């Protein structure tokens, strides 16, 4: 029989101890979670940065056009 089924619900300490393999299991899961979070941050930063650069380009061109219009007047 599965030892956990006999014991019922394992305690939190038991769960965290991972049968003595806590360092391995939690490090592996922790690094994977960290990589996911960093990926989200990087992908969003890339999207926002591109939008910002497009806005700056648009702003520069608009002000250049306005300057030309002023000169022509």
């Amino acid at each position, binding site marked *: 029989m599965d030892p956990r089924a006999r014991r019922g619900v394992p305690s939190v300490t038991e769960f965290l101890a991972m049968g003595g*393999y806590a360092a*391995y299991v939690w490090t*592996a899961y922790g690094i994977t979670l960290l990589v996911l979070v960093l990926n*989200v941050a990087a992908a*969003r930063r890339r999207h926002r940065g591109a939008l910002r650069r*497009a806005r700056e380009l648009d702003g520069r061109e608009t002000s250049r056009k306005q300057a030309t219009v002023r000169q022509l007047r």
Partner: protein
Amino acid sequence: MPLPRWFHLLGSPPFVYRLASKLGPWICAAGCLLLAVGGYWALAVAPPDYQQGEVYRIIYIHPQTAYVGTMAYVLMAVAAGIGFVWRIKLAHAVAVSAAPIGASFTFCALVTGSIWGRPTWGTFWAWGDPRIMFETLLLFLFLGYLMLRAAFDDRDKADRVSAILAVVGIVNVPIIHYSVIWWNTLHQGPTLFAEGGPAMTNDMLVPFLIMFAGFTFFFYWLLLTRLKGEIVERERATRWIRELVAGSRA
């Protein structure tokens, strides 16, 4: 036979940008939910392994991240190849977006494998082990692709040259997959596609598959987000991008 309309639409940056914006939140929600449920199931519900005890729980993240990394490479190579042959810029944008995500998942697979190797094989790393070496090569192919691109100022040239590297590198993918069958290696054999069906009982197989789905959805959400950034970067001089940024500024 004329190509269907949606096929042409898939080459249109504004259409794909809007599609990505619409689908993104749903794919993100699906990925996060599956990873949360699967993660809890993997760590707290699934029974311990009769040989490896609790440390086997790395099996719920290690093959999944390795699979997503490999799938990302295939996607990148196919997209880059399509971009190269038919000169579709959007296809190159997809390839560029997949590369850093694929690299990071491959990195995860190597690190989690290394951590798992210490208690089970007695070593973090084994030089000369085919599975480990070809997986490491996959990481270097991703990084090589990105570094090669960075060497060009001209984006079109970077797209074309890096596409060749991406396509050639795809030979590594089947080698990774079959390395544990072709050679005698420390790495254990396939679990899911083992001879005679999955080498797992259902109480382990269900979270195992949920984690596969979760990482896959999460990957596609990251891909769509990066692709949106890439599209804006490449199209910033066009009218629709100006309207887009003007709309977001107001």
